[in-house]
């Protein structure tokens, strides 16, 4: 279980050039993994904009950056630049465990075509680009989204 409080707004603001950051809200992301019976999963949680372009990193689970290239969607969007995930990474998540993140997100990111995407990878098993794709909307809060790969379910709440 991860409990984090990060003011993500600034980092994201730079990435998506929002004009102002008047309001922000605390959002909790919960990602539950299936019992896939393998080693700890590497995960990338990140945002894409209305055009499907990478917009910013929420969190990277997994400590060795040499394996980040297996988080393909994120790696492509972020170019795996350290500045994209500096201070936003932690341990990998074991089979059947869940990851909970609490971040401050700017209000402007909601209902604006942004999506939360989760890429996952496990040693000696397949990589899953877009294991989860969940639109970031006010309405979608609290509604679980099923994953296609190692993710059992994903939801966010505020």
């Amino acid at each position, binding site marked *: 279980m991860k409990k984090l409080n990060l003011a993500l707004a600034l980092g994201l603001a730079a990435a998506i050039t929002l004009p102002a950051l008047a309001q922000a809200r605390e959002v909790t992301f919960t990602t539950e993994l299936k019992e896939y019976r393998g080693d700890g999963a590497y995960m990338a949680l990140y945002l894409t904009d209305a055009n499907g372009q990478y917009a910013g990193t929420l969190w990277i689970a997994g400590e060795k950056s040499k394996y980040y290239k297996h988080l393909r969607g994120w790696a492509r969007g972020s170019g795996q630049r350290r500045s994209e995930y500096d201070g936003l990474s932690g341990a990998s998540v074991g089979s059947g465990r869940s990851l909970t993140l609490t971040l401050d997100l700017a209000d402007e990111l909601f209902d604006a075509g942004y999506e939360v995407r989760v890429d996952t990878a496990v040693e000696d098993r397949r*990589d899953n*680009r877009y294991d989860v794709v969940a639109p970031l909307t006010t309405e979608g809060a609290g509604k679980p989204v099923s994953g*296609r790969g190692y993710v059992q379910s994903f939801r966010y709440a505020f």
Partner: protein
Amino acid sequence: MLRQFHSLPGLIAALFVIVLSVTGAILSLNPALERAGSVVVPATGQISVAELAGKVAEHYPGVNQIERTPLGTLIVYYTRDGQMGADRVDPRTGQSIAAYEPSSFSAWVKNLHRSLLLDMPGRAVAGIMALAMVVLAISGALLLAARLGGWRQLLRPVRGTLIQRLHIELGRAAMLGLLLSGLTASYLSATTFGLAPEGVAAEPEFPMEVSGGPPAAVDTLSALKATDLNDLRELVYPYPNDPTDMYSLSTDQGAGYIDQASGEWLSYQPHDATHRLYEFIYMLHTGEGLWWLGVILGLASLTVPVMAVTGPIIWWKRQQSKPKLAANSGPNAADSIILVGSEGNTTWGFARTLHDSLARKGHRVHTAPMNQLASGYRGAKRLFILTATYGDGDAPASASRFLARLEKMSNTPDLPVAVLGFGDRQFPRFCGFAKEVEAALAAKGWPQLLPLDTINQQSPQAFTRWGDAVSKAISTELTLIHTPTRPHTTTLKLGERVDYGADVQAPTAVLRFRAPENGSQPSLLNRLLGRTGLPPFEAGDLVGILPPDSHVPRFYSLASASKDGTLEICVRHHPGGLCSSFLHALPVGGTIEAFIQPNPDFRPAAGKAPVVLIGAGTGIGPLIGFIRHNKAHRSMHLYWGGRSPQSDFLYEPELNTYMEDKRLTELNAVFSRVSDSAYVQDKISVDAVQLRRLIEKGAQILVCGGRDMAASVMAAMDEVIAPLGMDVATLKAQGRYREDVY
């Protein structure tokens, strides 16, 4: 010193290396199992990646990724109806063979192997253990070479107790494999911690622009057409319906991105040389891509648990045998100095016997390792040097610096010296170091107390004789009674005796002892386990018997094994002999105090090669034991000499039975007090042709009897085998000629 380099890491690492080696052995099977499974590897140049991708597309419209393992298994990752799956496929058809599910057991074993399930701290421990393995393999090899007398002798048979032989034989067989495993593991571990470069896996430039045209069929892409299937590692497809996405391809040579419309490389980066080295070492360690090496390394690592158990046992026994000296005087206060050269501590035991004996007579004794030779001993009147020889005439551990120290001494003290060497006559340079020490002392002009004497195979009798000579030289009555293994005696009862030879002035008795009944029936458990109440022994081992009122045991070769339920010896009565008189007078039901001294070298070697047994008189004891237990009916030839067939033909009825039931192939009994008088060595010369044939078949020769007989037999045997270009010394070195001589 070298021994400490072996013992210390070994003791610390024992437990960890057991875990690492067992898990390693399990993992080593994976490549071989994969290979034995349904892997089809097409010849190079036969199938291109484009062709394969085309065939895969027919069966898997939702393919996301194709992966090829180093041994050639193809795995297709796909999405079907929103669900993800993975299949093993046939490279020729692209058709599914079976669903692919990596084993979670293997993953667990792998984690245990590389990190003891403790993540980074565990990886650090595993890395240190890998280094320990390298140190153990190298120091073990050096110890073995020293023990056997040089690198060229490395394949010679090893002597020692069962535990020692297990440790050495397994270590010798697995040495190279373990060294390779340890070195490669150390390197891999070093790369994990950034201490060694693993090079850069090709990290191609991420293309910013794609041609943007309509996607072409995968089997038409030129970059994929130009790549052979056997070079493929991984092909990742573009995300469906994303025209800005691209293929990424990684091969044995490098990696890059391919445009999904033009089929051209958008970027490409070859692997660097360091990374190729990393991958090569990774392959050497895991056998992934080299399955047979994996199996060899796996087998080698299976020896580790055995060595990790036998090693500490050997160390413990050596610690146990370290002497605890009572009343050791200082070097300048002592009148008698004892310097000890010992490798395995056995010589210390003899030194302590001498030390105690002198101390009991009121002498002040200083006993120290030879390496502590001082430039002067102020009050000393005599110096004793007791030394073993290590390997091929080298100094043992506690004497390694002795000769250098002696060389540096400027003036020779007026201190008469007696050198006593310990060794094994079966080695070519018997007591080589003791002789070297004696010569070096003589060259320095040291006065001599006694000329050099030698003790073969830790013989307590020879040591007692040397003690008598010392007594005369220093005019002090010493009794040197040394028992290499502290006698922990068992009381045994004479159950049966057969007497021979009274008519030819060679009264000889076959005595069979049993464990005395404790008044109750043996328990069911004991009967099930075959426990007989006797200490464990094999025919050919020695029994030490303490005659009443004596502390000096006499040793007899055993004619039976403990599993036979009796302890059987063959004893000739020597007039005036304390123990033989006692035994010959012993009535049935009388008891003795006895202990076992293992003699593992004197018994038939395992296998089917013929065995030639040679003995005279009571020397038949262990030989009849070997014949009796020859249930496998290997070819056994007995040459035995007595005095008269009517009087001292020991075991005659039994030998005839064994001839009939084929446990004995050939019986050659000769007698010296008959009309055509002959000795056993005469019969050997007569049978030269047949014996040569047996030797050519790999026969082993076991000789038991008196010293003179053994010498005559050896001389006769040398002549017999000379035409083969061999001599007895060669056979001895090969472990094929063994003696039990008294």
